[in-house]
């Protein structure tokens, strides 16, 4: 096998000249990883290796530990579905998953996505330049709001109302002191911000959620709210699901859409390759982009019993003790050279993974019982959007996005991403 000594990967494996393709854009600088599994001085276990991360996420000896779930454990009487565990979570997930299947997307939402993309293209042609970020909300939101059943708002502007809440999420700073003592990523809530968030939620409920619930009590439809009503969910529980589905369903896909557009608009060859590719090839390219630009950096778990973890690279075994906080480092797992071939921090549209049985997106959609249920929709909407956007004559970047960080979700945020077309 010949080897490209400059780039350090076997040339027979990858036909792509990596120097011409993009490098990872969104990740925060990280300390070099010394071991796939480490325990820090506070007793927090850090998982960097892909195989070890997958083993932990698939284990039945862990429960969720991130995004404020442990605060909810103690304070809330209403726990949304994404925070449930065990059989209850599995049953709920199965009952609602029919909204996310490829068949459901093709039959129920395809025309909505295309309609939104048409409007987007008309906007950019008319204005000559647009900020991609708010438009990405309209695109993914058209599907997510339909799935939830948020279609009877009393006033226009639901997107802004949800956005103002999402924009406040970074203000819910993790309490690093608690994190460092191994108590989890607890949230510090500034009382003023807390009150403001509650007010915004109340407005969202009164203007958007309540009328949707009332309508579906009279006339059920094929959506989440109608399903929850059939399960005897009251308004508060219904509202909790609406807000979690809206945030989870919109936030990550819109960031990814912007990141993907950034790569393609910056790399004309990559763009041409995408536009000429088959459905399967485009799917592989998008999954490679998701691997490289995973929106979520960390996944948190809590061990509910001792967990033995075998580390293949050193042929050793460690035991994560019951009660320990576990941090899965998604960027590290996604660039684990035991799984991903050479140059893991570069985009390779023809990448073939070394490891059998691993999706091209590697760990970006998570794994185990809580694997992202909306991964198909996110990729489908992104694909429809990109094919139309990239085919526009003269489309180019006017201003690269500002990259910020959301510590609450441990996710990147791309803002002020201005694209335009030459007149």
């Amino acid at each position: 096998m010949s080897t490209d000594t400059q780039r350090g990967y076997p040339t027979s494996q990858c036909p792509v000249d990596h120097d011409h393709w993009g490098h990872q854009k969104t990740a925060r600088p990280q300390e070099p990883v010394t071991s796939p599994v480490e325990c820090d001085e506070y007793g927090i276990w850090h998982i960097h290796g892909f195989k070890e991360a997958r083993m932990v996420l698939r284990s039945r000896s862990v429960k969720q530990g991130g995004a404020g779930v442990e605060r909810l454990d103690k304070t809330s009487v209403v726990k949304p579905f994404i925070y449930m565990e065990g059989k209850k979570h599995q049953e709920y997930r199965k009952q609602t998953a029919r909204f996310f299947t490829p068949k459901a997307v093709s039959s129920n939402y395809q025309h909505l996505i295309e309609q939104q993309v048409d409007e987007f293209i008309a906007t950019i042609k008319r204005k000559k330049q647009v900020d991609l970020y708010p438009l990405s909300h309209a695109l993914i939101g058209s599907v997510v709001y339909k799935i939830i059943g948020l279609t009877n708002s009393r006033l226009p502007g639901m997107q802004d109302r949800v956005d103002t809440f999402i924009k406040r999420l970074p203000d819910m700073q993790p309490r690093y002191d608690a994190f460092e003592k191994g108590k989890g990523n607890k949230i510090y809530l500034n009382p003023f911000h807390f009150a403001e968030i509650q007010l915004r939620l109340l407005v969202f409920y009164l203007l958007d959620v309540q009328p949707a619930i009332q309508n579906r009590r009279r006339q059920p439809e094929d959506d989440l709210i109608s399903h929850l009503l059939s399960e005897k969910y009251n308004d508060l529980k219904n509202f909790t699901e609406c807000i979690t589905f809206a945030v989870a369903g919109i936030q990550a896909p819109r960031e990814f859409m912007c990141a993907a557009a950034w790569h393609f608009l910056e790399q004309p060859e990559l763009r041409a390759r995408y536009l000429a590719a088959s459905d399967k090839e485009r799917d592989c390219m998008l999954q490679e982009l998701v691997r490289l630009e995973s929106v979520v950096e960390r996944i948190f778990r809590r061990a509910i019993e001792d967990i033995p973890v075998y580390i293949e690279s050193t042929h050793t075994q460690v035991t994560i003790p019951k009660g320990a906080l576990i941090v899965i480092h998604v960027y590290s797992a996604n660039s684990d050279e035991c799984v991903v071939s050479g140059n893991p921090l570069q985009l390779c549209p023809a990448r073939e993974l070394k490891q059998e049985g691993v999706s091209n997106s590697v760990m970006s959609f998570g794994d185990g019982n809580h694997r992202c249920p909306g991964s198909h929709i996110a990729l489908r909407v992104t694909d429809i959007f990109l094919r139309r956007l990239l085919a526009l004559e003269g489309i180019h970047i006017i201003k690269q996005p500002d990259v910020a960080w959301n510590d609450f979700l441990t996710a990147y945020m791309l803002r002020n991403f201005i694209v335009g077309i030459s007149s």
Partner: protein
Amino acid sequence: MRIRVSTQRCIVSGVCVQTCSEVFAQNDDGVVHVLDEHPSLVHIKEIQQAVLRCPVQAFLIEDQENTTDLTIIEDNWDQ
């Protein structure tokens, strides 16, 4: 080789369908459905990939050494 698929354990991730749509589909509720209980061995690699990729390990492989005969059945083996 015999592969048993637990529809009970399935969490409707759709990963198996994305990996090998010739053999696996999702029913109206999204749960895994085996389209062909005796698929061609041409698909063996994709099927094995689907088995490994399933996030909740809903598949159980038996008689793995036998690569001349392939059977896939829906069967709640974990009950």
